[in-house]
């Protein structure tokens, strides 16, 4: 085993002894690198190198988007012919048919509603899971369950687990970022590292109230001119090296010297990343940056591609809390879909033509779906019992519809996929065994999937 100090000396990025202790205990058998964010191999060869998670906060309705239910259309206004769950967030009435027309698209003939005309053209890339289910009927609990696997306790986010497991490929950028995340319903706990070392926490790029144009990394800019800052850092380096000579070897002091140089490089890399003028007009149009309704989310998606290109491990893009149609389903789902449809289709096409889709896993979905029964005249309640998410890209079967809900789209019934299973599968695609990716905290080995989770073999390509 390497001597601890030597390990730290070779580190580009310093870190604390807790992190080290954790890594040493967890990575036994795998190559241990001194830098906790250095890229490292998983448990087995990976199909996906990175994840882009397109999060639709609020809960898009499965029966109005990807889960076509002819019987629901037929039995509009009739009572639900089976029991509702014991715990619901509100009372709902009789069945409510979808106000949106469905059609089959692409070679695969997958059903997509008229809400997503652009996405419908990419349907042969999508692996649609129509049998998702979770355990919590409220936004907060469901968001936390989706992001961390637990709706009961504060636990590390999936992005944190993944960067903990794999490190990240670009040391000049954070390994786990979340663009314009929501601060509600768990807020930072949805991207926090909890008991994992803090280096694995998500870096928020702006938040839900920031326009994507202005969203940037915290503290990345300051009032000091660059030349002056360089002089300050040179002077600081001299002082620190002198001090090190005085104290004798100390890994923490050494890595702190390195951390200033890294910060300086990050600062240099950020404006280039933020500046999208180098993108062609055609690309801008592809993401809908030329239109008012799609500009904001389009830019988020474009930034996601730029981060992905630069090797960021986990990128989350949030379409903020808009999808919660307890009423006004027809208008609001239409407007929400309009904002995201072209940007997402643009992202998939752009990733594909750049060859990035091969090793990028794209995930789309909300924290739950909605009831096929009506809330008021034009609304649906939360429904964690059965809903749709889709995957695209690295390692998943394209053009597949997996699993099914009942005849009306209320409960997942066939090939059910719980959030834990989704997590296990994502880790699997990234080359990580969810049973072996553990971290010891408070006397227990924790996993993203807790004591659950099974890899969904049926969707693997």
């Amino acid at each position: 085993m390497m001597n601890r100090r030597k390990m730290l000396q070779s580190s580009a990025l310093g870190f604390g002894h807790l992190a080290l202790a954790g890594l040493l205990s967890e990575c036994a058998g795998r190559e241990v690198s001194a830098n906790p964010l250095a890229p490292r191999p998983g448990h087995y060869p990976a199909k996906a190198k990175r994840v882009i998670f397109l999060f639709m906060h609020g809960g898009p309705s499965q029966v109005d988007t990807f889960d076509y239910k002819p019987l629901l259309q037929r039995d509009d206004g009739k009572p639900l012919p089976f029991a509702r769950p014991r715990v619901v967030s509100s009372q709902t009435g009789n069945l409510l048919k979808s106000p949106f027309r469905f059609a089959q698209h692409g070679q695969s003939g997958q059903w997509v509603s008229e809400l997503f005309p652009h996405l419908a053209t990419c349907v042969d890339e999508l692996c649609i899971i129509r049998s998702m289910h979770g355990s919590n009927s409220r936004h907060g609990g469901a968001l936390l369950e989706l992001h961390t696997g637990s709706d009961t306790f504060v636990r590390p986010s999936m992005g944190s687990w993944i960067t903990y497991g794999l490190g990240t490929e670009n040391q000049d950028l954070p390994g786990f970022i979340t663009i314009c995340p929501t601060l509600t319903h768990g807020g930072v706990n949805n991207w926090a590292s909890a008991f994992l070392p803090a280096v694995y926490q998500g870096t928020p790029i702006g938040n839900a109230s920031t326009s994507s144009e202005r969203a940037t990394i915290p503290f990345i800019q300051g009032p000091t001119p660059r030349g002056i800052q360089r002089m300050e850092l040179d002077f600081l380096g001299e002082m620190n090296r002198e001090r090190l000579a005085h104290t004798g070897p100390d890994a923490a002091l050494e890595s702190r010297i390195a951390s200033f140089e890294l910060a300086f490089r990050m600062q240099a890399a950020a404006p280039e990343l933020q500046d999208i003028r180098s993108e062609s007009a055609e690309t801008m149009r592809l993401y809908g940056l030329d239109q008012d309704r799609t500009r904001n989310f389009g830019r988020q998606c474009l930034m996601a591609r730029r981060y992905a290109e630069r090797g960021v491990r986990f990128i989350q893009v949030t379409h903020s809390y808009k999808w919660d149609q307890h009423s006004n389903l027809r208008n609001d789902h239409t407007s929400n879909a309009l904002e995201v449809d072209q940007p997402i289709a643009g992202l998939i096409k752009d990733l594909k033509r750049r060859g990035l889709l091969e090793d990028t896993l794209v995930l789309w979905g909300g924290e739950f779906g909605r009831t096929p029964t009506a809330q008021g005249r034009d609304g649906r309640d939360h429904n964690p019992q059965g809903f749709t998410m889709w995957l695209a890209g690295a390692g998943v079967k394209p053009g597949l519809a997996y699993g099914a809900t009942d005849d009306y789209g209320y409960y997942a019934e066939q090939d059910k996929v719980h959030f834990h299973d989704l997590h296990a599968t994502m880790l699997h695609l990234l080359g990580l065994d969810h049973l072996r990716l553990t971290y010891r905290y408070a006397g227990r080995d924790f996993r993203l999937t807790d004591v659950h989770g099974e890899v969904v073999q049926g969707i693997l390509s």
Partner: protein
Amino acid sequence: MTRVLWSLALFVPLAGATSGQEPMANLAGLKFFETHVRPVLSNRCYECHGPEKQKGKLRVDSLAALLAGGKSGPALKAGKPDESLLIQAIRHGESLQMPPRMKLPAKEIGDLTAWVKMGAPWPDAKTQVAKQPAPEGETIFTKAQTAHWAFQPIRKPDPPAVRNPGWGRSPLDAFILAKLQEKGLAPAPAADARTLIRRLTFDLIGLPPTPAEVEAFVAESRAAPQAALEKAVDRLLASPRYGERWARHWLDVVRYADSNGMDENLVFGNAWRYRDYVIKAFNTDKPYDEFVREQIAGDLPPAKNPDEAGERIIATGFLCIGPKMLAEDDPVKMEMDIIDEQVDTMGRAFMGMTLGCVRCHDHKYDPFTIADYYALAGIFKSTKTMDNFRVVARWQERPTATLAEVQKASQHAKKMAELQENIARAIKQQYGAIVQPERQRAREYWETARAVHLMAAGKTVEQWARDKRLKQAFLKQWLELARKSPVELNAVALAKVSLDEKGPFRFTAELEADFSAAARKELGVRRSELAAMEKSAPVLAETMAVSEGKATNLRIHLRGNHMTQGREVPRRFPKLFSNLKQEPIDASQSGRLSLARWMTLAEHPLTSRVMVNRLWHWHFGSGLVRSVDNFGLLGEKPSHPELLDWLATRFIESGWSIKAMQRIMVLSSAYQMSGAYHDGAYQIDPDNRLHWRHNRRRLEAEALRDSLYGLGGNLDVAMGGTLFDAKNRKYVPGYPNGNYEKYDFPRRSIYLPVIRSAQYEVLQAFDFADPSFPSGERAITTVAPQALFLMNGKIVHEQTRAWAEKLLLDSKLDDAGRVGRIYEQALGRPARAQEIERALDFLQRIESERARQKMVDSRAHAWQSLCRVMVSANEFVYVE
């Protein structure tokens, strides 16, 4: 088919137990089983619950096995499909879904249900459950578990004999030295006075020593080092800044925050009272046993006076400030989750035990059973923490006003009442003067009013009043009367209504226009006074606190699931500690008070050990037991077990005085060692487990921020209260789409709002503990965002600017003197000659670079650059 079922249904009451006594029905049942049930079980279930595998310790290939069940309890209740786990599971009910990924076709579910309903006939079945598993929670502990060091009584070891006893002032040192000598190591030489005073000052109050304090200490140390040290320690322990520093450590342990976090980030608008209570407890050296008892059950014993009562109620905030799922649709789950959080926090904070693990199953490592857990949880189930468990749920708050506050409030109320009376009196007097003459004109009013009413068209009331010279306000009221009573009023009746307090001559605000100018002015003044008083009326303090609830025992929740409950367990303390005196818990009480007393028994093997170890960790940078929050079998063993017991004994003997314990620690020679590197020692003990030198430590987030304000000359040392600009119980401002951003206060960091789920980025960058978890040990990371903060952060920019400006304004100093001052203030030492030279050169280069780029204000900026480098330097950020 229907007929068969019908005839079988008749058989239900006798099923199972009488199997074999009803041949006809039985035969049909068995046939049904063979054709419709066994194939399903075998195709769908045997793979995981058969001869090969028994997931969840369940097999379903015999009736006996089904009746015995697995981890979740019996799988079958003959005749009662709704109560049978097997059926609940295949229906994909809440607690279990089987097969897990694929719901069975409706027909198979129907068949299995019908079969259970008919009494679960099974050929040649033994209905007797072959082997009753031990009742849950009655696991026998292994020897390794019960013999674990942390559960053994605290011994009172004598300090070991050491060679070369010349080193060491305190018995504590003998324990350290003995271990070092065992390994052939020697303690590092003592740190010099400057290093020592900087270490001690940061350690005890979280701020750098002033240059004057450093110089005084250096001078005094030269004459009498130990006396100087004792004096400095006394001074620092007596400083109010001490409580602010050490309370923050404790707040980490109790996962303190000013908002709920989790799903609904509501404002804990009164949590700060608990925070202030902790600061005061440290400053006044509240005995630790009392401190613990107050946090568990402060509300229960009678208090000497309202102040004490209020303070103790506030202390129970410890149990209330945890993160909660306030929008959980299942109220039973919500309550159990809240209780779990309380049990877990209490276990970790006071005993270093991870009791949360035991919610679902016996502890995998430590000797705690699921019965122990629900026995403890019952105490909190019998305690009221919440007003309700609705969505969004409401936590309980209790009045806590001190006597002084109550008096102040009642004085305020009295003054307001006086003022109101004053106003009323003035009005009455003016009104009296106005109404007196008008009463004589009652008939005129009445007739005019009738005229207005009857001939509604034409003149308005205003015009009538003007023409008749009547008071318009009164006339309007007469008009009301005229509309109500169309009959004529005689003189007697008229006189009566004129004097009626509610009659048409009653007072109305409109009349104030007729008051004298002086009276109007006076009234205006009085009224604005009253409005101001209303605004400033003291709100009687309430605080998040618990009270006694309905005393009740809990049943064991199998696998932690409230949908599958086992047997009831009486409230009690973990069986492991059965040798400790346990007061019986009165059936009418929660048992919290007994729990509090039990926790602080001198013989309790954990409470005192855990706390002295925490203190050691905070002073030395690493605990004698390094896993400060885990003293269980998976925790680390103490490096110096005898020392730990010696300290725990001294702690208890001193009356659980934290300050006395800290004095013992910081006055030891062990504490005063330098941090000097020694290659030989490093090879033997790289982690410094044996304390061959002092651990070099990075400033915590708060110490760094507070020092920046201090160096900028802007630190406001006001104490207590809240800076959180938010309404209690409402969502955190900024929600739903923005961050809470008001942190711009020059107060000490402990007073800044702690927002769960959106923490302050400055503190967070420097490893502020996640306030959702109890945590006695902060991670120490060295990452680029910290460097970015020092390079670009607003606070750094503002405070280094202020610092530079102050230096430049000091006309007694020349530039070399200014550089010297910077070194003294930031690093606690004079600058060496070549350091001054280098700094001056740096200043000059910055200035000319700025001049070259035609930037203004170059001199101040250059000094600011120097100040920024200084607070970024390792020598500043690390305490030796």
